[in-house]
Structures are given as structure tokens and as C-alpha cells.
């Protein structure tokens, strides 16, 4: 698979683009709103059309090209080839696109790329590598996966949940991981896997 991050966007930057299409306007104003209140005032400048920003993803600064309407998920999947973040629901209700932004789980499908440019983004790929995260290992041991399409989102959600609740009980696991949908029905083993990680830290 080719690394796609160097591909230039097809449509160029243009001021006139700004007022075209309500979605772009809404996106731009949302981005502007989100920028307000951040430390640097100049960040609240209106952006439109294609522009280059830098995102900090898995500890690396990545230059990416975005429009105001570009979601974080599109950037991760199409420009950085980080496809562990899955497109399942446009409304984020499946949790399949869960990534960590400043250590908090969010759905990348409902987050604009421009809104996270000064934040630390961690995707499921950061939990892999030669020595995978204990959550991944526990998922495999318990077979907390079938087709696996929801699994990366679930792994990130469990990681975030356990970071916050390292001593979670079974009841807390059952109550705290309701942001992710699995269609194959792996919930029972996800519960077991999460508890295995809790117990291995005791």
C-alpha cells in the first residue's frame, strides 16, 4: 500500500470557495469557534478551501492538506493510511472511528481535522507494533473479535477506559463501554479481555 500523504489535493485553495456551499461555511465557522479560546488569538483566522496544516499523530508531526469540512477520519484514512479508524456511522454512534485526542476518546468521523491541529492524536496503530498493547493481547487471548471491523475502535475505547479506571469492576466495564457497537456480538469476550487487563495490573 502506498503512503498517500504526499498526494496534492486536486482542488486548489481559493477565497471564492469559502462562500460556496453551506456545509463548508458551517465547517469553517465551527472551526473558528473551536479555535476561539485557545491560547493563540491568531489561530482563530478564518480558513477556507484547501490548506496545509500539521497534525500530531502518534507522536509524529504530519503535514496534511485539508478543507474546513475535512474530518479527522478522512485525513487519517486517506492521507496517512491509518485505516484502523473505521468508517461505520456518519453520526459517530458506532464508536468505530474512536481515536484519542489529548488522551480522551473521540470519534474521528465527527471531528473536523482543523479542530485538532494543536492536539495530540493517537490512533489504534500506536497500540500495535512489535510489542502490542496489553489490551490488544487480551482481545486476542479472549477472542474478543470476529469480523474485526469494530475491533480497533473498541480497543482504543477499552484502553482509554482502563487508563481512567485501572481497577474497573465487571459492572463498571459493562456500564462504561457503551459507545461502541459490534454487530458480530463480541461483547462477552470484550468484557473478559478488559477484566484480564485489570487483573494483570493487580
Amino acid at each position, binding site marked *: 500500500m502506498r503512503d498517500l500523504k504526499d498526494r496534492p489535493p486536486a482542488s486548489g485553495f481559493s477565497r471564492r*470557495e469559502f462562500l460556496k456551499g453551506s456545509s463548508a461555511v458551517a465547517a469553517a465557522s465551527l472551526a473558528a469557534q473551536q479555535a476561539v479560546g485557545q491560547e493563540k488569538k491568531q489561530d482563530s483566522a478564518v480558513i477556507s478551501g484547501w490548506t496545509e496544516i500539521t497534525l500530531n499523530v502518534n507522536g509524529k508531526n504530519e503535514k496534511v492538506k485539508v478543507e474546513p469540512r475535512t474530518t479527522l477520519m478522512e485525513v487519517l484514512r486517506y492521507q496517512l*493510511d491509518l485505516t484502523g479508524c473505521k468508517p461505520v456511522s456518519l*453520526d459517530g454512534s458506532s464508536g468505530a472511528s474512536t481515536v484519542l485526542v489529548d488522551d480522551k476518546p473521540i470519534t474521528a468521523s465527527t471531528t473536523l481535522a482543523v479542530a485538532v491541529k494543536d492536539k495530540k492524536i493517537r490512533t489504534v496503530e500506536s497500540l500495535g507494533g512489535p510489542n502490542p498493547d496489553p489490551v490488544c493481547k487480551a482481545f486476542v487471548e479472549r477472542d474478543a473479535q470476529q469480523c474485526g471491523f469494530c475491533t480497533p475502535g473498541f480497543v482504543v475505547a477499552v484502553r482509554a477506559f482502563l487508563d481512567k479506571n485501572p481497577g474497573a469492576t465487571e459492572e463498571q466495564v459493562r456500564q462504561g463501554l457503551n459507545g461502541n457497537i459490534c454487530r458480530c456480538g463480541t*461483547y*462477552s469476550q470484550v468484557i473478559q479481555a478488559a477484566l484480564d487487563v485489570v487483573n494483570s495490573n493487580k
Partner: protein
Amino acid sequence: MAKIEWPSADQAAIIGKRVTRTDGIAKCTGEAKYTYDVNLENQLIAVGLGCPHGHCKITALEAAPAQNVKGVVAVELLKKAGDEIQWEGEILAVVAAESEGAAREGVARLREALKIEALDVFVNDEDLEAATKANRISKGGDKVELEKEPGDDDDEDEFIEKEIARLFKESKHVVEADYGIDVITHCCLEPHGSTVEWKGNKLNAYLSTQNVSGTDEGFAGGLGITADDVTVTCQYIGGGFGSKFAPDYWGITAAQIAKKTGRPVKFMLDRDQELKLGGSRPSGYIKVKLGADENGIVQIWDSTHWGTGGVSSGSVSQAVIPYVYTPKNYRRVATNVSVNAANARAWRAPNHPQGCAITQTAYDDLAAKMGADSLEIFKKNLVNISNPQFKQLYEEEMDLAAKIMDWKAKWHPHGKGKANGSVVEGLGMAIHTWGGGANASTAIVRIHPDGSVSTFCGTQELGTGTRTCCAMVTAETLGLKVEDIDVNIGVSTYPFSGASGGSTTIGAISESHRRAATAALNQLFEKVAPKLEAKAEQLVAKDGRIQSNGDSKKGITWREACTLLGMRPLEASASYERGAQSPLSSSQVGGVQMAHVAVDKETGVIKMKKFVVVQDMGLIINRLTAESQCYGAAIMGIAYALFEQRLMDPATGRFINAELGEYKLPRIGDVGEIVIELYEPEHQRSRGVIGLGEPPVISPGAAISNAVANALGVRVPVLPLTPERVLAALEKA
């Protein structure tokens, strides 16, 4: 000489053990590439424009509005002015662009310019009277079976009516009731779709499919080329459940756009399109009258049922009415209702979950009416079942399930349990059956001079752990470890292996890999025999060695044995033909499930407390992934029993809850405790491998509905058992 048979349970080194998936870490970390994840250089992203109305005529549809959008490269119109569309969501046009944002903007422009003339819509599949009035019904088949034969002079129809009336008159207990189960969708988390590219006149199609070996023909037929010109690849699929057997017209369209533009194209359905077009399961609604003798054994069943499979696909087959139980006398009539929705597709265990849900509920209501223990009624009626030879198996499984559920201690007659505030609890059960015989499959096993082993088979990893099972069977046969086997599946140029549908894959790949590995091993034995001064037929492969049977000292390591191959790898291929008698596989399973629920009479909310799955499947290959199939099936069953349903707007025919926020599926906190008991006594193990994907998903609807009826003393007739329906049933009672 290795024979075509399975090792005994105590001799097996790998078969039947708990083996973690060889691709488990890849799936957990995003390393596994699904069709949606395949990013090809210079690819275009395609998005479809769905029809906004359930039944309409297109009056204006133009490509131009999208062509003007920056970044849009191609617009393909699939329909034109004058075309009549029969369901919402049908794709009218496809926009391919440099980015998803541009493609969506292009679709938005097309939608603004689209003009339609709305036509009459019918979506009310539950109301047979309305469907009849609207002229939306057709015959769905019927069958009458009576012990008594008509006399020579009898009019047959008259005789049937009279005989049925007589049987009811003689019945000690009669139940008359209505039941139902709504349409649900497959709702694959990875939507249907493909990423395609042309290399000259050859098509490379990355397709989300359950049918790797068969979809090359599907593309070829749609594009006017030959199957040899198409390579279909699917290493991972994000759910299929019976809905992903073909490239579909959207796959063909992607290939056409790729041809026209000279660029790769990714075209995946949107979530709402996945729910509207990607596949649905027919509904079933039934009016039943049954009569039983003083022991509660059903003597006569008389039912008429209906439901919809979309515009032109059928309802639930009459063959599964009543389900598993087959009284000596019955009449069953099926009617199809046509609604403005895309046609249904095979949904995990086609017909069976609905058949179970709308008939074994009646058996439970018989128990309720008699004030009897449901388990006793389900057990007694085993005297009349579709596979009489399974009576003992069901009895054993019922006893086992009852023990795990602690049925005896927990049981109370329907509606007579102790209430805890507004919460009442109840137990319910159901039983099922499925074929699951092996599909056709061919595998190649290659043993290399360096000792490595690779296998090739055009099957697919559906999520069931097929890749791991291919490695397990090969490793067991060759006396190696699972990690020693390099498994190659998921490409249509590999040897043919049947589609993964109907629980046919585990049998298929077990047959082909066991046979091919055995053939390869026998060739290796011929090479090794002279060196060991033994006869090839005396050799065995065990623990990474080739040795004389009974004298482990007389042997060499696997690696050393393979050096005898010289420079070229050894290769063997073997096939299994569907339906062939084999010591390795067979078909037909039973299965018993029990549910324990708590129902809040004030809110109508049902909570799963415990769910017990007892399932036979012949010989188990991988105990870990076999259990996962059962866990998953139980949860999918909880989904259709309590949560999911397609909701249609009667005015516009729109599927109004086609997003995951509104299409309710259970979440981790909704499933309660689930206990899986794989039932593999020697009398089952000796039957060989039988598929497991479908059977455990069949019983949950009836088992949960029966548990709710036991708790409330009132039947909530139609699944899913939403709080609204629970409250309505309580109010009516």
C-alpha cells in the same frame, strides 16, 4: 500412510483445542486491511445518490450540477427521467471525486436538481387486510398433512376442513394466538462495496465479499469480460451475514467508472444505503390455532402466516412452520406481501429464526395455558420432530441447558413469579436445527525444501477464524505447529472454494486442507522411507518429526525430512465435492437455548439476566472460535429479540431509522451473562465437522419472548419486544 480421517480426541494435538487467531493482532491494531481500507494510488472516491422516496417516477436527473463541483471527476447516471423506482435508497447516480468531501458535495448538487413524481407507497407488511386491499399479496405456498386419509368419495377440501375441526374438537387444550417478527437488516459494519483498478484489460477488484471464488464471474458477467480477466481479493470482510455474495450493481458501476477515468475507484455504500440496500431479513406474522392432548402433545396445528421480503421477494417459507416440531396433523399457509423496499437477502439461517420465533412461542403458550413447566412441554413434544433420530440429542441438550440455567430452582408458572417492586423475572427456551454440510473446496498444500509449508485456497475469512482453522487442520495433519503454516486465502485466483453461506465453510476448508495435507504428507513419506529403512505406510508425522509408527527413535526432524525434497517444493492438491459422503464431515445439528430475563412492568424495559447456549456441531476444530460463534449468535439474537427493527414511514416509504443512532442494536451493557456449552460427546464428535455459523442464532427470539411471557403472564406477540410493545401488551391483558 496417513489416512483420510480425524485423529481421536486423545490423539489430537491441535484439533479441538483453544487456538487464538493467527490474524488476531492484525485485526486489533488496524493492520488488517479491509476492502474499505485498500487505498490505491491516484484513487477516486465515489458516493451514490439514493432515491429519496419509496415509490416514484424520475422526472429530472442530470449529471451537470455535480460536474461543476471542484474535485468531481466523473458522474455516472444509473437511472434517467421516466424510470420508475420501487424503493427508497436505490442508487440513481454515482459521483467520483478526488476527495470524499467533493464527492458528497457533488451528490448534494444532484439531489437539489433531482425531480421526482411521488407514486403510491405501501410499506405496512404487518396488516394482511390492508395488503390484500392494496392488492399487494401473492401466494407463498402451503402444505396440509393429516394422518387420516380422505375416502374415495370425499371432496378433498371439505374433508380437510372437517378433519381439522374434528381434531380440534378432540383436543384437550387449544391455543389460538398471533405472533410476529419484524424486518431487520444485515447492517454489516463494513458496508458493501469495492475498491477497483484496471491493469490494461484486467480488473483487480478488492471486494467486501463472502464469495471470493465466485465473484470474479459476477464482475465478468456485468462487464462483458471473462472471469479469467478478473481477480477478486478479500483478505478481511467487515461482516456479511448472508448479504455479500455478489459484486452488486454498485461494484459493476465502480469498475465502469474506473475504466472511463483510467483511475482506481473506491465505492462503498453509506451507512443509510447499507441498511436500505445492503440486505434485510423477511418479516413473519402468523395466526395460529393448535390443539394438544391431555399430556400437552400437539395433535393439530393450523396456521396462516404472511410477511415481506421487499418488492418481489418472499416471506418466511412455509417449510419451517411449525419449527423443528412437526405434529402429525398440520395445515400451514404462507402469503407474501409486497412492500416498497429493496428485496431481502439471505440472513444468517434463512427462515429459521423467524420460523422459530413465531411458532415455538405457541408451544410455550400451550404450557402457559396448561399451567405446565415449559421445559416439560418442549420435551414431551420431541415425539414429533422433523428429525426423529435427534430426539435423544435434544433431550440431552435440554437437560444440560436446564442444569446450567438452574431451571428447576428458578422456574415458576407463567405470571406467577415473585415481583421485586415493578420487576418480574421469567424463563424461556427454544430449540433449533440446521444442516451445515461442507461446501465444495479445493486446497493446495506446498512443502518447501527448507521445511516451510504454505497452503492456497480461494476461501475467505468471514470473521469466523477460517484462516486460523486452515492452519490448524494443516498443522495437525503434518505434525507441525499452527505458526508453521503460511495460509493463503482470499484471492479468486487460488483454487476454488465455495461461498461462505449456510455454515458450510468450516466443513469445506477442513475437508480440502486435511485431504491436501494428507496427500502431501504421503508424498513426503515416500521420500523419507528409504532413509529410515521403513515402509512409507509405517510412517507418521508427529511433534515436528517424521518417524516410524510405534518407534519414535526411528525418525528424523521435519526440517531434515524436507531437505530430501531436493530443490523443488512438493505440492499436493485435493478437493471435496459438496454432498459427498466423507469421514471428515457431515451435516445436521440440534441445539437448545434458555433465557432468563427481568421485565420492569412500569417502564416495559427488558433486561437480559442470563442466556444459555447448548450447541452440538459434530467435531470441533477450534474450541475458542467455535465458542465465539455461539456468543455472537446469542447477541445477534438478543438484538432482534429486543432491539432492532426497520421502521418505515407509511406516507413516503422512507426507512426512517437507517443510522446506527436510531437503528437500535444492543451495546455491551445490554447482553447480560451468556454461558456457552459446546456439546461434543463422542457420538457427535465421530460425525465429523459440521458448520456452526447459523444454528445458535435461531433460538434466541423464541427463547427470550417465552421468558418475557413467563415473567409477565402475558405474551408480547411481536419481536422486537420494545418497551412500547411490552406496555401495550400489559394494557391489553
